[in-house]
């Protein structure tokens, strides 16, 4: 039995059913369990969350640090937040640590959920995904009813 751990983190348990001609116990379950360390440690989190108001540009950075012994390179980066969001990345320590920044100019009221897809070199996992949420609320007028 083998388990591909791409996309898994933490404790992973996979089971399979062995079906035989043993009439007393036709099915038996076998299971394989492992603790999976993430390919990249993310600080402060694996998820972007940017709450702001219209007219107040905001950004959040996540520093990704590789757990691989060999150098890891980010070759490209895509995202599906649309034109209202910008994504940049820079090396903190080439081959090991990268800072990814998601930002918005917050020009209009919106709620955007999306993913940032990092294309990697130096690992058998070709892509790595970070999720995020941008929430731009209406401008507070300061008038209380």
């Amino acid at each position, binding site marked *: 039995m083998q388990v591909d751990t791409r996309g898994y983190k933490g404790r992973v348990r996979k089971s399979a059913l062995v079906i035989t001609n043993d009439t007393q116990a036709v099915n*038996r379950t076998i299971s394989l369990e492992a603790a999976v360390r993430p390919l990249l440690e993310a600080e402060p989190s694996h998820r972007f969350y940017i709450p702001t108001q219209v007219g107040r540009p905001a950004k959040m950075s996540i520093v990704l640090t590789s757990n691989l012994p060999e150098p890891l390179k980010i070759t490209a980066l895509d995202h599906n937040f649309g034109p209202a969001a910008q994504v940049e990345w820079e090396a903190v320590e080439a081959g090991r640590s990268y800072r990814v920044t998601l930002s918005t100019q917050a020009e209009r009221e919106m709620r955007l959920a999306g993913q940032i897809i990092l294309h990697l070199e130096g690992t058998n996992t070709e892509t790595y995904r970070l999720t995020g949420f941008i929430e731009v609320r209406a401008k507070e007028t300061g008038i209380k009813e």
Partner: protein
Amino acid sequence: MKLRCLSLTVLILLVWSGAVQAGPVMVIPEPSIKIKEPVLEGATVRGEFEVLNQGDEDLVINKVSPG
């Protein structure tokens, strides 16, 4: 007479239980494997399971279906 009846009953029970036990008997000594060392995401984890037959007929594995 009573002893003979009892002996006969025991004999029948033994033969009957033997008939129930007949056929293939699947035994998996270690059905659950835990990998001790943490693995890095993206690695392929492998585990080998031994399937034994403790019956008196051939055991046929018809299917192994991932759950």
